[in-house]
């Protein structure tokens, strides 16, 4: 089992994700420079938070065209597990791996604080270790976390049970309180809150670590993407 943490210029949660995988859930992990395109030996790709390319123009808009992205799109289409956290989520939206877009927070401010999330679906490689309906404490830290999708798209998300996390108390104006979603095939997760920041009790909460533990569980249960 091998995790890969993508590093774009401007990523700044890459080391935090790396730390949690290596030191907390104790799994093999490597950094992947955004110019490399070789992903075959990875089982899960983490696109970390931060400000890829400074979030200039639009969050994730420029990173989306980094050389690595075509490989990630292929990796995902082949069924590989991809998780985008915060800026990583925004990159996945820009890349079209997940539906919708991010708007500026309703209060127009960057918001960094712990929030309560409701686990809406546990039938995913990323949330199987939670209980449905469980309320978990995981911090957010973003300027553009105000998730937008049109009504048709929202209906789709609901119909396919693609909404994994909802805010208990919507901090940013996100449509339908959405904090995290998966794609139809359920192998790509995007979430604005930072599970890697709440995986050690000294930091105030361990609730986030179960996202990573869910992935490990999925992978150990022999989940494997069809190598094309």
């Amino acid at each position, binding site marked *: 089992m091998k995790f890969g943490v993508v590093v774009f*210029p401007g990523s700044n949660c890459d080391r935090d994700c790396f730390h949690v995988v290596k030191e907390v859930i104790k799994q093999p992990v490597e950094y992947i420079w955004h110019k490399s395109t070789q992903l075959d030996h990875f089982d899960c790709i983490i696109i970390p938070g931060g*400000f890829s390319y400074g979030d200039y123009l639009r969050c994730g808009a420029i990173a989306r065209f980094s050389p690595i992205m075509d490989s990630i799109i292929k990796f995902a289409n082949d069924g590989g597990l991809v998780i985008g956290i915060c800026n990583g989520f925004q990159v996945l939206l820009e890349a079209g791996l997940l539906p919708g877009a991010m708007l500026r927070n309703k209060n127009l401010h*960057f918001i*960094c604080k712990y929030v309560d999330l409701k686990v809406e679906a546990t039938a995913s490689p990323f949330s199987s270790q939670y209980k449905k309906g469980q309320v978990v404490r995981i911090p957010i830290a973003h300027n553009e976390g105000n998730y937008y999708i049109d009504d048709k798209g929202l209906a789709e998300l609901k119909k396919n049970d693609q909404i994994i996390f909802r805010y208990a108390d919507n901090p940013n104006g996100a449509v339908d309180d959405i904090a995290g979603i998966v794609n139809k095939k359920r192998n790509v997760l995007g979430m604005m809150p930072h599970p890697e920041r709440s*995986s050690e009790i000294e930091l105030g909460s361990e609730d986030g670590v179960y996202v990573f533990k869910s992935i490990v569980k999925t992978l150990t249960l022999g989940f494997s993407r069809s190598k094309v």
Partner: protein
Amino acid sequence: MVKRDVYCALGLTDAEYQKIEEIMGREPSSTELAMFSVEWSEHCGYPRSRSLLKTLPQTGKYEALVGEDSGGIVVDNLAIIFKMESHNHPSQVEPKQGAATGVGGIIRDIFTAGARPIASLNSLRFGPLTEPYNRYLLKGVVDGIQFYGNCLGVPTVGGEVYFDESYSGNCLVNAMSIGICEKDKLARAKAVGTGNPIMYVGSSTGRDGIGGCSVLASAEFSEGEEKRPTVQIGDPFTEKCLIEATLEALETGHILGIKDMGAAGLTCSSAEMAHAGDVGMEIDLNKVPLSEEGMEAYEIMMSESQERMLACIKKGHEDEISKIFEKWDLHGVIIGYVTDDKLLTVNYNGKEVAKITTEALAKAPIYEMKSEKPDYLDKLHAFDIKSISEPSDYNEVLLKLLASPTIASKEWVYQQYDHMVQTNTTILPGSDATVLKVKGRKMGIAATTDCNSRYCFLNPHRGAQIAVAEAARNLVCSGADPAAVTDCLNFGNPEKPDRFWYFKNCVEGIVDACKSFNIAVISGNVSFYNESPNGAINPTPGIGMIGIIPDYKKRSTQYFKNEGDVVILLGETKEELGGSEYLKVIHDRVAGDAPELDLEREKAVQKVVYDVIQEGFVNSAHDCSEGGLAVALAECCMRDGLGFIVDNLPKLREDCLLFGESQSRIILSADKKIAGKIEELAKKNNVPFAVLGQVDGDRFKVGQLIDLPLTRIKEAWNKGIRSYV
């Protein structure tokens, strides 16, 4: 012949110009003149403050690293580098970008030392929020800090925000940053080894902030606008790449020296790197990456374009290093080499445009300044408490104080800062000091900034001592041992004797206090000319302090945690109101003397608190500062919503008791059964000990004086700043 108005425009006096001609033995070229003007400005050369700064203690109980751009301490082989710096004038003119580039500058000072930045703090001071421009400044400055700091991925974990009329027209923006690295990985800010190449790294050079540091920073704001600088847009993305590239390049061991191009840009970095290495340097400006066309030599030498550095590379490894910077899409080009003649030689378009001894540039002249105590002080000190009528309704007074922006919750500010990135923040902003863990170690690092400038205005020597004492107190309350200080000394025009008198006394106060605590001042920064048409700012010797927790698990916060815990007050409440927030907010008076301070008592109180936290005796610890005992008690309830009943109060004039700002007082909460042990320790150090009452319910009850539901307390405290933004 250089015309007088030329060097005057550059901020040089006739005397200085004469001296320059002497040194040169000829008439200086315009480029040389420009270089002197920036190097000899207060901002870079400290001509007016250097002799006093020399008196700051450079050693203390922790191994101290002093002398280069930033300083630090060493704790079992971990170098903790930190520094605080001002960006006041640029922020007053363009708050967002001014504050942003301020953060960028201080962080460059940290990673050019080889340390990875792990946290930032900021100390902000504005005029009253009732004035629209002050609200604009607060919003803009906070926006600038979040814009830059959040993008970098360096958590902004603490600071302070004060409001006072004296900052209307001249706000203060002091940014502090902390970094860590293995001691033997530290980088030096010097050039060494004749023939070694000098590399320019980072973004390109434009006509940014030219003359900014001499003309802008050393001219007070006469009706603001005229002296408008060429404002720069901060580029945190490039800075982030610069951090990673620099640390990666330093890893190779082939960078012999590296320095930020901050104020005075290329002039300062080249001259000071050469001088520090006791060598010379020859550079060719045609090699400098430019973002604008047709730039003059002096413009290139003075440009303050952000996100640039200068490095001295081990000969033969140029390509290896420049490849690393190119990987991060940054310039990494050789612009010169080290010489042995101790001269800084600058060539442009095949001509030699400057040749100056680095000594002359790096060692600005030292001026003895006139110092004179202002006459109004004695009158202020004569203030008599009896002239103040005691309020009838203490509920109202408390709510008013909690809503006063200086005391009110700073959540609106720090919630806009990413204070969790890097996953080391084990005490979030909101408590007395933040505590960061260090991955792979048991140790924790606590940090705070403090200064009550009203005290300094009434009594600079004691006010500065109190700033040091309060910073230490905040660290101790979080479980840390105060370890070292960085200062940021913000004052008015030093050429005015009363302003300089304040500066002198504040520095002496810091010296005394730091010696008494046996901690070193490892870095600092001076910002003079903080004046506006309505006069000088309050003297503001900002103190940034870090502390060490042997085991970060033994940290503490200020919040009450368990119903039934006893509430303990250590220290003595005196009948004093001088300089208090209560006097200002309720009675609209700034009068009296700063609170008394007995450094021996202070240390005793801190020792007891440090010990009881280490022993695990207490569940919370919080110092009394602005707003006194009542406000401090309220702050203990804010997070977990636990109220308390205080029924055992010292006999004292009631407003002094509740709102007086007597120093060296700390509130503890602990299990009943353990109170005795704490009392013993207090007695042993003869620290006054009193059980005031207990944590209880959801009301706030102080004797017969105050009885309020916590909800109202919180509401007042939360709206203090929010109601203006």
